[in-house]
């Protein structure tokens, strides 16, 4: 499956969660209009026939919106945001004992819909979540998370997560231009193509985070992950049919890996939802080990710097940022291809990965009204086998415009158009954490 070829304009709608109480009926359809109002037939002003006809025609898009957006919103961010140690009430919500069972929907044109449900609950400083979604017979996700806040203002959080999925993905090789990179062994006629694979994995994460001062956070986390990768059934362009057999480490194999990471972060912004001036710095270091000794252990390191500068208004913010992720194998054994670094905050379709991934971006974000902000942005990304070999040649870029929705302390969602030389994306995301600051444990 070549997504770029099959879907020149990719429509990606990822919506999560909703109260389940969204009602579609307008007043005119309210059954109580007859019950209380005594109206047998509603009044029909001139032009009502035409409007009723249009209304009928809009039934289909309305139903699509109802299904797609019914499930929206944000209790998910309770769990998705945890890389940032929560400022208690912003993350935990305002009321105790809330138990929610909510549908989840993720739609993308050219891809199969992802339907599921999520149950969340919270009592005091403890929260739990169970989520499941099914894409097709080969793809599903089951996930559970427990979160306990500790201490005054719950400045410390403990998290335990379990995750299992089967999912179909693509791999196009390492390097900024895989077809020209000698480390990739394409079969004749397949250079530059992507091999589709089916990955089954289970993962457990234990994490502890604390806000040591208003602007500083520390996070320690460790995960155990088991992967099994094989060619995706029913696809022609699989790893086996794209790459020379035996040249893609980790393919057709089962690997078990422990990844441990320490992260320190400084965020001087007064608020994290609305546009605000400040500085965001993050550095992390970690190591991963194959528990069976088949694949190479690796060191992981990286960092992000993001500067939020106000111009003219306090809420008009220019935001340059850079990120760097490095994976460094410790010996000559193969590194499973899914462990390579990629720029997770890139807002285009890149698909690039290597031992080093870099991203530079420039955003301008400004407030439209309370809780709503607009954004224009441009991203550049590249990958390389080593840091010195990072080059501005073969940069992938994407530029776009979007509108963000946010609460007083956290982002809620965004709608964005992202254009690149060979594709245009419409992204509608609600209830998901901003991927702009990566998440090594949840890759």
């Amino acid at each position, binding site marked *: 499956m070549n997504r770029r070829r099959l879907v020149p304009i990719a429509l990606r709608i990822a919506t999560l969660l*909703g*109260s389940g109480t*969204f*009602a579609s*009926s*307008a*007043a*005119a*359809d309210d*059954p*109580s*209009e*007859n*019950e*209380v*109002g*005594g*109206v047998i*037939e509603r*009044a*029909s*002003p*001139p*032009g*009502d*026939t*035409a*409007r*009723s*006809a*249009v*209304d009928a025609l809009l039934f289909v*898009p*309305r139903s699509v919106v109802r299904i797609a*957006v019914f499930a*929206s*919103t*944000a209790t998910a961010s309770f769990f998705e945001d945890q890389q940032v140690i929560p400022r208690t009430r912003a993350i935990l*919500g*305002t*009321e105790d*004992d*809330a*138990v929610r069972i909510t549908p989840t929907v993720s739609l993308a044109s050219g891809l199969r819909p992802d339907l599921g449900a999520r149950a969340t609950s919270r009592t005091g400083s403890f929260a739990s979540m169970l989520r499941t979604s099914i894409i097709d017979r080969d793809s599903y996700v089951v996930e559970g998370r427990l979160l306990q806040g500790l201490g005054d203002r719950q400045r410390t959080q403990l998290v335990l997560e379990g995750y299992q999925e089967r999912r179909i993905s693509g791999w196009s090789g390492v390097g900024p231009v895989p077809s020209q990179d000698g480390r990739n062994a394409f079969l004749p006629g397949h250079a530059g193509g992507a091999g589709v694979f089916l990955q089954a994995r289970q993962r457990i994460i234990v994490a502890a985070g604390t806000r040591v001062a208003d602007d500083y956070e520390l996070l320690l986390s460790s995960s155990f992950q088991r992967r099994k990768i094989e060619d995706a059934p029913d696809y022609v362009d699989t790893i086996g049919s794209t790459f020379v057999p035996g040249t893609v480490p980790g393919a057709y194999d089962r690997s078990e890996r422990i990844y441990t990471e320490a992260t320190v972060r400084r965020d001087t912004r007064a608020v994290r939802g609305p546009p605000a001036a400040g500085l965001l710095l993050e550095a992390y270091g970690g190591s991963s080990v194959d528990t069976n000794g088949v694949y190479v252990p690796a060191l992981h390191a990286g960092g992000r710097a993001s500067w939020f500068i106000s*111009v*003219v*208004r306090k809420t*008009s913010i220019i935001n340059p940022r850079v990120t760097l992720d490095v994976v460094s194998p410790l010996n000559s054994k193969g590194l499973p291809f899914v462990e390579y670094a990629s720029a997770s905050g890139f807002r285009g379709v890149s698909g690039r990965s290597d031992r080093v991934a870099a991203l530079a971006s420039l955003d301008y974000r*400004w*407030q*439209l*009204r309370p*809780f*709503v902000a*607009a954004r224009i942005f441009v991203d550049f990304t590249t990958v390389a086998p080593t840091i010195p070999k990072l080059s501005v040649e073969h940069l992938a870029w994407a530029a776009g415009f979007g509108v963000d*929705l*946010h*609460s007083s302390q956290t982002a809620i969602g965004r709608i964005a158009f992202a254009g690149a030389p060979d594709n245009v994306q419409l992204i509608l995301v*609600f*209830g998901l954490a901003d991927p702009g600051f990566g998440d090594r444990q949840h890759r």
Partner: protein
Amino acid sequence: MNLRRLLALPAIAVVLAACGRYRPAVFADRPPVEVVHDDQATPLPSRQGFDEREHLSDVYLRRPLFDVIRPLDFGTGGDVNALDEVPASTWYEPLLTKRAPSGNANASPPTFPFIALDESPTTSPDALVVGDAKGVRYELLTDPPDKPGLHTAAEVLGSLLLRSLGLRAPRAWIVGVPESTLSSNGAEARKRLEAWLARKAALVGGSRRVSATLWPPGIDVGIASDFSLRGDDPNDRVEHANRRTLRAMRIFAHWMGWTSFGVKSTRDVYVGEPGKGHLVHFMTGVSRAFGTQDLQDLPRLDEQAGSLWWHLGTFGLAPVPTTPAKIAAFPSLGYLSETLVPGDFDVSPPYSPFVRLTPGDEYWAGKRLIDAGEDAIRIGIEATELPDNASAHLEKVLNKRRRALIAHATAVVTPLDVAANAGRTVWFKDRAIAAGVAQRKGTYYEVSYLDQSGHELSPRRSFWSAGEISVVPLPDAFEAGPMVLHVRSVRDGIPAPRWCDVHVVVDHTSARVIGIRH
């Protein structure tokens, strides 16, 4: 579909729109519903959670998106009866408008001593929760030291005015609380009490001036959605966004300068023993009304001024405008202007019933303001124990604002109600003239006599207004059957923007009103 057919579609739509004829509603021939029995025994519902992000997603994405792809207008509220009135229910108590707004006879001011409880307040984040000598729960709110009465008067006055409009609000009283009457129940409660006492507050005669709000008058089960039904309440059968009582709050909140009104201002309370009780619906947090949130000592840069489209078009780079200082006439009062622009009021984030306010809803709200009368304001202000000069000023301001809103509410429709019907005549009451916001002189009514399909049964006629009450005879040629009086007021040559439909069933000797829509 080829281009020619595509281009034909708008033309067909235009033709359809032009060809349409007005068809009045058809009403069942039955007495109007006076009471909605939504007080049937139900299981105790779960406490309704509130998630700010979920709510913001709802109001800024889901609801507008859905509204955009629905071309039909927002209709009449689901809690409106055949006479275009709201019957009594657990949301609305019209009887209260006919007596002094004293509220629940069983409620009484708290009695000393008070014991602070380790509970979060509902009516204001700054309140202290206490139990009085009888074990009744109250929430105590204080004023800033230099502004005695600012919040406490708003809490008491607001709850009285809301009840005078037929809405439910918790009872509140002004109380002087000496520190010696306060103790705590446990370590956590002590922390809350100490924090509350540490806050500087206005004193009267050495005691803290406090508003004591009786809350909850049952079991508080959380916030009432501003859009959807409550899933665990079988009595809840009208989408909240379609409730006229909530839509009309846009007018009431404008009157009271309640700019912070929102979904958190409405709460459900279960009254009765679990399993035998039912929900009633309250407005809370009125201490933030009457401009108490709008005071500002100095001119201030207003980053939020301007519309969404203005900010989008200027990329957030337009100079920040300055709003002038907003200083109250008296220290005890918030910033509440004597003048207002009807319709120029909204809240952020949007409140869905406000978005759906129709002219009929506004007219109904105007009638509630008329019925509440100046007495409600006077009685309410007396209960606040404000200084005389501040009381007089506040009374004047509220009356002026009320009058402006009534004038607008009676101008967006044809403000006629049926006062009586005698023989084959219908007696109309012109609410605008009755309220003194329109003149008899220069007012006449155009009346079309329609059948239920909208066909004219008799030529249109005009009648000069006779004053508050005008009598419209039915055409002699029409013998019997249903008829719609399609009426529009014209004042000084300017017709009302909307017609009023009065549905009658006529026989040889009489006419019976079965429905009204404004």
